């Protein structure tokens, strides 16, 4: 019984993140989505920039947390900022840039997208890679 419950729990945990997507040798996994009014402004991989950004009235940040793993197939290149598409197909940009993506073997980044409050997210795109977010969004 314990084993069955454990297995169910593990399956439950597994559904909290996206399946890894490999893009240009970067293994990309969406860890989850959070909502916030005030977010740290840290590029990716994150340094220790001290600034934070603020949403305005009627808006919020949909923060997409992503894990990156650099595989041997990765070759040094510029990777553009991710974009977010909501459930209705509208796209949003983030201020966070991906800089030197091969500089660390593994890292986690948070990409804030300023959206109207209550927006249902659809997917995140990193250049030509698209990762579905609908199942991860707790909204």
């Amino acid at each position: 019984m314990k084993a069955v419950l454990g297995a169910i729990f593990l399956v439950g945990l597994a559904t909290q993140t996206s399946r890894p997507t490999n893009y240009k040798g970067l293994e990309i996994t969406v860890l989850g989505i959070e909502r916030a009014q005030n977010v740290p402004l840290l590029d990716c991989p994150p340094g220790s920039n001290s600034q934070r950004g603020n949403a305005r009235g009627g808006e919020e940040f949909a923060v997409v947390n992503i894990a990156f793993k650099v595989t041997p197939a990765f070759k040094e290149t510029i990777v553009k900022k991710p974009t977010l598409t909501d459930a209705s197909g509208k796209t949003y940009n983030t201020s966070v840039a991906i800089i030197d993506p091969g500089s660390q073997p593994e890292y986690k980044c948070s990409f804030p997208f300023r959206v109207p409050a209550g927006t249902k997210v659809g997917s995140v795109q990193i250049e030509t890679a698209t990762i579905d977010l609908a199942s991860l969004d707790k909204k």
Partner: protein
Amino acid sequence: MDIDRRAFIASLGGTAAVSLMDSEAKADALEHWMEDQLDQQGATAQGTAEKFPTVAELEAQIETRNYRRGAGNVFVNTRGNVRKLEPMPKNPTLKDFFRLRFAPANHVLQSATRAMKTGMSEEIILACLLHDCAQALMKADHGWWGAQLFEPYIPEKSTFGIRYHQALRFYADSDAGYEYPDLYYRIFGQDYVPPPHIEATYKMLRNHKWYMEPRLVTVNDLYAFDPNAKVSIDPFEDIIGRHFKQPKEGLGNDNSPSAHMWRTLANPDAPL
């Protein structure tokens, strides 16, 4: 406040970079570093919502100081007396001013580094490198002062970026990747409303073909407050060489429209 000596030296680019700085520059660097640390602690401690001052609360602080916040860094030491500045060379270059008057210049170097690493144009990289340098001379309206200071020597687009980043920083633009920062709640007040000339400038810029020049300066500005970033002017030497018209007589000696501003930076202790 405890000072992490190693982190502080690292933030200036290491011991080699520190050894090139005079005492005044080191003192200024320490002051900026401590301010950054305080900002960071405030942000970390805030969890959900930091209490920001109002415009009225900031105004009430004016008569508690013996200096005005808009005065340039070379004129003010907010924590004591100013120190004697190392004289400028006979024919000073931009790099000399970076070393002797703008140092540590960590923020502008970080900003330009980000512009370079994200593949922006050389005009933008140069604008990022120079965008806050005029704060050594004057903080109030520093975008306009900076543009005036550099205009005779740099491309028109770089001047445009420096001048108007000052207005655009008050207006978030997610499409371009700029968010309104806590820093402005802290230093201008949470209820601050930009004055009419800034609002009018913003409206003008929204329809201008070069809107992205100052906008990209603000985008990089926001991500250039990392106390641990290691930066140097060396990666920008080629861009400066290509785009900065260094006068052979030296900055301040060339009779340009802004020569007097360079002379003031060179000798801010002149009584008249």
